[in-house]
Protein backbone atom coordinates (compact mmCIF):
# COMPACT_ATOMS: atom_id res chain seq x y z
CA UNK A 1 0.00 0.00 0.00
CA UNK A 2 1.45 3.40 -0.96
CA UNK A 3 1.22 6.60 1.01
CA UNK A 4 -1.89 8.75 0.62
CA UNK A 5 -2.20 12.53 0.81
CA UNK A 6 -2.36 13.75 4.40
CA UNK A 7 -5.79 14.79 5.59
CA UNK A 8 -6.63 16.33 8.95
CA UNK A 9 -7.60 13.04 10.62
CA UNK A 10 -6.72 10.62 7.88
CA UNK A 11 -4.55 7.75 9.04
CA UNK A 12 -2.36 6.42 6.25
CA UNK A 13 0.03 3.49 6.25
CA UNK A 14 2.54 1.73 4.02
CA UNK A 15 4.60 -1.39 4.33
CA UNK A 16 8.37 -1.07 4.16
CA UNK A 17 9.17 -4.69 4.99
CA UNK A 18 7.23 -7.85 5.87
CA UNK A 19 7.45 -7.01 9.54
CA UNK A 20 7.60 -3.22 9.40
CA UNK A 21 4.77 -0.77 8.80
CA UNK A 22 4.87 3.03 8.68
CA UNK A 23 1.76 4.80 9.90
CA UNK A 24 1.09 8.52 9.48
CA UNK A 25 -1.71 9.76 11.76
CA UNK A 26 -2.34 12.95 9.75
CA UNK A 27 -2.63 16.35 11.39
CA UNK A 28 -4.82 15.36 14.35
CA UNK A 29 -4.83 12.31 16.55
CA UNK A 30 -7.64 12.85 19.01
CA UNK A 31 -10.90 11.36 20.27
CA UNK A 32 -12.32 11.34 16.76
CA UNK A 33 -9.79 9.00 15.24
CA UNK A 34 -7.93 7.39 18.17
CA UNK A 35 -10.11 4.28 17.92
CA UNK A 36 -9.14 3.99 14.24
CA UNK A 37 -5.50 4.17 15.23
CA UNK A 38 -5.99 1.40 17.80
CA UNK A 39 -7.68 -0.72 15.14
CA UNK A 40 -4.97 0.02 12.57
CA UNK A 41 -2.18 -0.92 14.98
CA UNK A 42 -3.99 -3.99 16.29
CA UNK A 43 -4.67 -5.21 12.75
CA UNK A 44 -1.02 -4.70 11.81
CA UNK A 45 0.07 -6.67 14.87
CA UNK A 46 -2.30 -9.51 13.97
CA UNK A 47 -0.81 -9.52 10.48
CA UNK A 48 2.65 -9.97 11.99
CA UNK A 49 4.11 -6.49 11.79
CA UNK A 50 6.54 -6.40 14.70
CA UNK A 51 7.70 -2.87 14.07
CA UNK A 52 5.29 -0.02 13.62
CA UNK A 53 6.84 3.33 12.84
CA UNK A 54 4.54 6.21 13.58
CA UNK A 55 5.70 9.14 11.48
CA UNK A 56 4.37 12.27 13.17
CA UNK A 57 5.78 14.78 10.70
CA UNK A 58 2.29 16.14 9.94
CA UNK A 59 0.87 15.83 13.44
CA UNK A 60 -0.20 19.15 14.98
CA UNK A 61 -2.37 17.94 17.85
CA UNK A 62 -2.24 14.85 20.01
CA UNK A 63 -4.95 14.38 22.61
CA UNK A 64 -4.90 11.97 25.54
CA UNK A 65 -6.98 9.54 23.48
CA UNK A 66 -4.30 9.69 20.78
CA UNK A 67 -1.62 8.98 23.36
CA UNK A 68 -3.75 6.13 24.67
CA UNK A 69 -3.94 4.56 21.21
CA UNK A 70 -0.15 4.19 21.27
CA UNK A 71 0.29 3.37 24.94
CA UNK A 72 -2.42 0.73 24.90
CA UNK A 73 -0.88 -1.16 21.99
CA UNK A 74 2.86 -0.81 22.44
CA UNK A 75 3.13 -3.72 24.88
CA UNK A 76 1.86 -6.16 22.24
CA UNK A 77 4.54 -5.05 19.78
CA UNK A 78 7.23 -5.39 22.42
CA UNK A 79 6.04 -8.88 23.32
CA UNK A 80 6.36 -9.74 19.62
CA UNK A 81 10.02 -8.66 19.79
CA UNK A 82 9.31 -5.39 18.04
CA UNK A 83 8.17 -1.93 19.05
CA UNK A 84 6.14 1.09 18.14
CA UNK A 85 8.64 3.77 17.18
CA UNK A 86 7.69 7.43 16.97
CA UNK A 87 9.59 9.74 14.65
CA UNK A 88 9.52 13.33 13.40
CA UNK A 89 7.89 14.36 16.66
CA UNK A 90 7.41 18.13 16.99
CA UNK A 91 8.41 19.99 20.14
CA UNK A 92 4.81 20.51 21.22
CA UNK A 93 3.85 16.86 20.74
CA UNK A 94 7.01 15.84 22.58
CA UNK A 95 5.99 18.20 25.35
CA UNK A 96 2.71 16.32 25.83
CA UNK A 97 4.60 13.03 25.98
CA UNK A 98 7.01 14.47 28.53
CA UNK A 99 4.17 15.77 30.69
CA UNK A 100 2.82 12.21 30.81
CA UNK A 101 6.30 10.78 31.56
CA UNK A 102 6.20 8.91 28.26
CA UNK A 103 9.18 10.48 26.49
CA UNK A 104 11.52 7.85 27.94
CA UNK A 105 9.01 5.02 28.01
CA UNK A 106 8.18 5.21 24.31
CA UNK A 107 10.82 4.80 21.63
CA UNK A 108 11.29 8.10 19.84
CA UNK A 109 13.64 8.78 16.93
CA UNK A 110 14.37 12.08 15.24
CA UNK A 111 13.74 10.93 11.68
CA UNK A 112 12.06 8.09 9.85
CA UNK A 113 15.49 7.05 8.57
CA UNK A 114 16.71 6.59 12.15
CA UNK A 115 13.53 4.67 12.99
CA UNK A 116 14.07 2.37 10.01
CA UNK A 117 17.69 1.84 11.04
CA UNK A 118 16.49 0.76 14.47
CA UNK A 119 14.35 -1.86 12.72
CA UNK A 120 17.41 -3.08 10.82
CA UNK A 121 16.41 -1.43 7.57
CA UNK A 122 18.96 0.73 5.73
CA UNK A 123 17.09 3.17 3.51
Amino acid at each position, binding site marked *: MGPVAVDERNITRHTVRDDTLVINPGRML*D*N*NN*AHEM*VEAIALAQVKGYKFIIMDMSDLE*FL*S*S*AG*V*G*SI*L*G*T*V*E*TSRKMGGDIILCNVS*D*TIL*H*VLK*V*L*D*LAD*FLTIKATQKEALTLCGIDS
Partner: protein
Amino acid sequence: MQIDYIDTLTLLVPADLSNDAMTHFDRGLKKLLTEDPQTIAFDTSQLKYVTSSHIKLLWQIYNICLDAGVTMKLKSPSPGLVRVLKVLDLYELLTENFESMRPQLRKAVRIESGEIPPPYADEFRADSRSIDEALEGFLKFLRRFTLPEVVIFELRTVFYEVATNIRSHAQMGDDDLVVFTARFEGSKLIMVFADSGIPFDQISSTLDFDPQTASKNGQTRGLGLTLVRRLTDKMSYVRMNDVINVLTLEKKWGP
Protein backbone atom coordinates in the same frame (compact mmCIF):
# COMPACT_ATOMS: atom_id res chain seq x y z
CA MET B 1 -42.87 40.35 30.59
CA GLN B 2 -43.28 43.47 32.76
CA ILE B 3 -42.08 46.91 31.83
CA ASP B 4 -41.70 49.34 34.70
CA TYR B 5 -41.06 53.03 34.02
CA ILE B 6 -40.94 54.26 37.65
CA ASP B 7 -37.24 54.97 38.09
CA THR B 8 -35.54 52.86 35.48
CA LEU B 9 -36.60 50.64 32.63
CA THR B 10 -37.13 47.11 33.81
CA LEU B 11 -37.52 43.94 31.83
CA LEU B 12 -38.39 40.57 33.25
CA VAL B 13 -36.01 37.76 32.31
CA PRO B 14 -38.08 34.63 31.69
CA ALA B 15 -37.26 31.32 33.31
CA ASP B 16 -38.89 29.61 30.34
CA LEU B 17 -36.54 29.89 27.37
CA SER B 18 -38.90 28.52 24.74
CA ASN B 19 -38.89 30.16 21.33
CA ASP B 20 -42.11 32.03 22.06
CA ALA B 21 -40.83 33.35 25.37
CA MET B 22 -37.54 34.42 23.80
CA THR B 23 -39.26 36.15 20.90
CA HIS B 24 -41.37 38.04 23.41
CA PHE B 25 -38.30 38.95 25.44
CA ASP B 26 -36.33 40.09 22.36
CA ARG B 27 -39.20 42.36 21.33
CA GLY B 28 -39.37 43.84 24.82
CA LEU B 29 -35.65 44.49 24.88
CA LYS B 30 -35.65 46.09 21.43
CA LYS B 31 -38.53 48.30 22.46
CA LEU B 32 -36.70 49.46 25.57
CA LEU B 33 -33.54 50.17 23.60
CA THR B 34 -35.43 52.44 21.19
CA GLU B 35 -36.17 54.67 24.18
CA ASP B 36 -32.42 55.28 24.54
CA PRO B 37 -32.25 54.58 28.28
CA GLN B 38 -29.15 55.02 30.40
CA THR B 39 -29.90 51.89 32.39
CA ILE B 40 -32.03 48.83 31.98
CA ALA B 41 -32.73 46.62 34.97
CA PHE B 42 -33.28 42.99 34.17
CA ASP B 43 -35.56 41.37 36.69
CA THR B 44 -34.19 37.88 37.32
CA SER B 45 -36.53 37.02 40.18
CA GLN B 46 -38.01 34.15 38.19
CA LEU B 47 -34.65 32.41 37.74
CA LYS B 48 -34.84 30.13 40.75
CA TYR B 49 -33.11 27.32 38.90
CA VAL B 50 -30.31 28.52 36.69
CA THR B 51 -29.12 26.58 33.68
CA SER B 52 -26.25 27.29 31.32
CA SER B 53 -28.85 28.57 28.83
CA HIS B 54 -29.85 31.30 31.31
CA ILE B 55 -26.21 32.27 31.73
CA LYS B 56 -25.89 32.38 27.97
CA LEU B 57 -28.94 34.64 27.77
CA LEU B 58 -27.56 37.02 30.40
CA TRP B 59 -24.26 37.13 28.59
CA GLN B 60 -26.04 37.97 25.33
CA ILE B 61 -28.02 40.70 27.09
CA TYR B 62 -24.79 42.11 28.48
CA ASN B 63 -23.26 42.30 25.01
CA ILE B 64 -26.37 43.89 23.51
CA CYS B 65 -26.39 46.52 26.25
CA LEU B 66 -22.67 47.10 25.80
CA ASP B 67 -23.13 47.65 22.07
CA ALA B 68 -26.04 50.02 22.74
CA GLY B 69 -24.13 51.96 25.38
CA VAL B 70 -26.68 51.04 28.03
CA THR B 71 -25.85 50.09 31.60
CA MET B 72 -27.20 46.67 32.55
CA LYS B 73 -28.40 45.94 36.08
CA LEU B 74 -29.69 42.72 37.49
CA LYS B 75 -32.74 43.09 39.68
CA SER B 76 -33.67 40.56 42.37
CA PRO B 77 -31.11 37.89 41.49
CA SER B 78 -31.66 34.73 43.50
CA PRO B 79 -28.82 33.50 45.77
CA GLY B 80 -28.38 30.61 43.31
CA LEU B 81 -27.92 32.94 40.37
CA VAL B 82 -25.53 35.16 42.31
CA ARG B 83 -23.46 32.13 43.25
CA VAL B 84 -23.29 30.84 39.68
CA LEU B 85 -22.36 34.26 38.31
CA LYS B 86 -19.68 34.72 40.97
CA VAL B 87 -18.13 31.37 40.21
CA LEU B 88 -18.13 32.19 36.51
CA ASP B 89 -16.60 35.55 37.38
CA LEU B 90 -19.47 37.29 35.63
CA TYR B 91 -21.19 38.71 38.69
CA GLU B 92 -19.43 42.07 38.86
CA LEU B 93 -19.65 42.45 35.12
CA LEU B 94 -23.41 41.87 35.04
CA THR B 95 -24.42 43.67 38.21
CA GLU B 96 -23.17 47.18 37.74
CA ASN B 97 -24.65 49.71 40.10
CA PHE B 98 -23.69 53.19 41.16
CA GLU B 99 -21.62 51.92 44.07
CA SER B 100 -19.53 49.66 41.94
CA MET B 101 -19.54 51.69 38.73
CA ARG B 102 -16.25 53.46 39.39
CA PRO B 103 -14.03 50.38 39.58
CA GLN B 104 -16.00 48.86 36.70
CA LEU B 105 -15.40 51.95 34.59
CA ARG B 106 -11.75 52.00 35.51
CA LYS B 107 -11.55 48.37 34.51
CA ALA B 108 -13.38 49.11 31.26
CA VAL B 109 -10.93 51.90 30.46
CA ARG B 110 -8.00 49.60 31.18
CA ILE B 111 -9.51 46.93 28.92
CA GLU B 112 -10.15 49.53 26.20
CA SER B 113 -6.55 50.76 26.39
CA GLY B 114 -5.22 47.23 26.16
CA GLU B 115 -3.85 47.28 29.69
CA ILE B 116 -6.11 44.39 30.67
CA PRO B 117 -7.11 41.78 28.10
CA PRO B 118 -10.90 41.52 27.80
CA PRO B 119 -12.53 38.37 29.17
CA TYR B 120 -13.59 35.67 26.75
CA ALA B 121 -16.90 33.84 26.84
CA ASP B 122 -18.46 31.24 24.61
CA GLU B 123 -21.01 28.48 24.76
CA PHE B 124 -21.14 25.28 22.77
CA ARG B 125 -22.89 21.95 22.49
CA ALA B 126 -20.98 18.95 23.79
CA ASP B 127 -20.59 17.28 20.42
CA SER B 128 -17.44 16.71 18.46
CA ARG B 129 -17.93 19.40 15.83
CA SER B 130 -19.08 22.06 18.31
CA ILE B 131 -16.08 21.35 20.53
CA ASP B 132 -13.76 21.76 17.54
CA GLU B 133 -15.42 25.07 16.64
CA ALA B 134 -15.32 26.32 20.22
CA LEU B 135 -11.66 25.36 20.41
CA GLU B 136 -10.94 27.36 17.25
CA GLY B 137 -12.64 30.37 18.82
CA PHE B 138 -10.62 30.01 22.00
CA LEU B 139 -7.39 29.71 20.00
CA LYS B 140 -8.22 32.89 18.08
CA PHE B 141 -8.72 34.65 21.40
CA LEU B 142 -5.39 33.36 22.75
CA ARG B 143 -3.48 34.33 19.62
CA ARG B 144 -4.43 37.97 20.15
CA PHE B 145 -1.90 38.02 22.97
CA THR B 146 1.81 37.40 23.03
CA LEU B 147 1.73 34.05 24.76
CA PRO B 148 4.50 31.49 24.36
CA GLU B 149 3.52 28.92 21.73
CA VAL B 150 3.90 26.08 24.21
CA VAL B 151 1.44 27.77 26.58
CA ILE B 152 -1.10 28.13 23.78
CA PHE B 153 -0.63 24.44 23.00
CA GLU B 154 -1.11 23.52 26.65
CA LEU B 155 -4.24 25.63 26.94
CA ARG B 156 -5.57 24.08 23.74
CA THR B 157 -4.94 20.64 25.19
CA VAL B 158 -6.61 21.52 28.50
CA PHE B 159 -9.68 22.94 26.74
CA TYR B 160 -9.98 19.92 24.47
CA GLU B 161 -9.56 17.37 27.24
CA VAL B 162 -12.05 19.03 29.59
CA ALA B 163 -14.62 19.58 26.83
CA THR B 164 -14.38 15.99 25.59
CA ASN B 165 -14.66 14.70 29.16
CA ILE B 166 -17.87 16.68 29.56
CA ARG B 167 -19.04 15.20 26.28
CA SER B 168 -18.22 11.67 27.42
CA HIS B 169 -19.44 11.79 31.00
CA ALA B 170 -21.95 14.59 31.62
CA GLN B 171 -24.71 12.98 29.52
CA MET B 172 -25.93 16.31 28.25
CA GLY B 173 -28.92 16.68 25.97
CA ASP B 174 -28.62 17.80 22.36
CA ASP B 175 -29.71 21.34 23.22
CA ASP B 176 -27.72 21.71 26.42
CA LEU B 177 -24.78 24.04 26.25
CA VAL B 178 -21.41 24.21 27.93
CA VAL B 179 -20.58 27.76 28.99
CA PHE B 180 -16.90 28.62 28.88
CA THR B 181 -15.22 31.77 30.15
CA ALA B 182 -11.57 32.74 30.31
CA ARG B 183 -9.88 35.78 31.73
CA PHE B 184 -6.32 36.90 32.28
CA GLU B 185 -4.91 37.93 35.62
CA GLY B 186 -1.36 38.99 34.89
CA SER B 187 0.52 35.96 33.63
CA LYS B 188 -2.30 33.64 34.64
CA LEU B 189 -5.41 32.49 32.81
CA ILE B 190 -8.54 31.47 34.69
CA MET B 191 -10.80 29.13 32.71
CA VAL B 192 -14.28 28.14 33.82
CA PHE B 193 -16.43 25.41 32.29
CA ALA B 194 -20.08 25.22 33.33
CA ASP B 195 -22.47 22.54 32.14
CA SER B 196 -25.89 21.26 33.16
CA GLY B 197 -25.07 17.58 32.82
CA ILE B 198 -25.11 14.95 35.53
CA PRO B 199 -22.72 15.56 38.45
CA PHE B 200 -19.20 14.90 37.23
CA ASP B 201 -16.22 15.89 39.31
CA GLN B 202 -13.22 15.82 37.01
CA ILE B 203 -10.92 16.40 39.95
CA SER B 204 -11.85 13.54 42.26
CA SER B 205 -11.87 11.18 39.28
CA THR B 206 -8.20 11.83 38.64
CA LEU B 207 -6.04 8.81 39.36
CA ASP B 208 -2.29 8.50 39.50
CA PHE B 209 -0.80 7.54 36.19
CA ASP B 210 2.09 5.17 35.65
CA PRO B 211 3.21 4.48 32.06
CA GLN B 212 4.42 0.92 32.80
CA THR B 213 1.16 -0.11 34.43
CA ALA B 214 -0.97 1.64 31.85
CA SER B 215 0.91 -0.05 29.03
CA LYS B 216 0.72 -3.51 30.61
CA ASN B 217 -3.00 -3.05 31.13
CA GLY B 218 -3.49 -1.93 27.56
CA GLN B 219 -4.96 1.32 28.83
CA THR B 220 -6.18 3.49 25.99
CA ARG B 221 -8.46 5.82 27.95
CA GLY B 222 -8.43 7.98 31.05
CA LEU B 223 -5.22 9.87 30.39
CA GLY B 224 -7.04 13.16 29.83
CA LEU B 225 -7.55 13.97 33.49
CA THR B 226 -3.90 13.30 34.22
CA LEU B 227 -2.92 15.60 31.37
CA VAL B 228 -5.25 18.38 32.55
CA ARG B 229 -4.02 18.11 36.11
CA ARG B 230 -0.38 18.24 35.04
CA LEU B 231 -0.90 21.13 32.61
CA THR B 232 -2.74 23.37 35.06
CA ASP B 233 -1.74 24.89 38.38
CA LYS B 234 -5.07 24.83 40.18
CA MET B 235 -8.39 23.08 39.72
CA SER B 236 -11.64 23.32 41.59
CA TYR B 237 -15.08 21.82 41.09
CA VAL B 238 -18.45 22.73 42.51
CA ARG B 239 -21.93 21.39 41.81
CA MET B 240 -24.24 24.37 42.00
CA ASN B 241 -27.89 24.13 42.97
CA ASP B 242 -27.69 20.46 42.01
CA VAL B 243 -27.99 21.65 38.42
CA ILE B 244 -24.68 22.98 37.12
CA ASN B 245 -21.19 21.50 37.12
CA VAL B 246 -18.62 24.28 37.40
CA LEU B 247 -14.97 23.43 36.82
CA THR B 248 -12.42 26.20 37.33
CA LEU B 249 -8.85 25.85 36.13
CA GLU B 250 -5.91 28.14 36.59
CA LYS B 251 -2.89 28.18 34.32
CA LYS B 252 0.22 30.24 35.05
CA TRP B 253 3.26 30.90 32.93
CA GLY B 254 6.36 33.03 33.06
CA PRO B 255 8.37 33.88 36.16
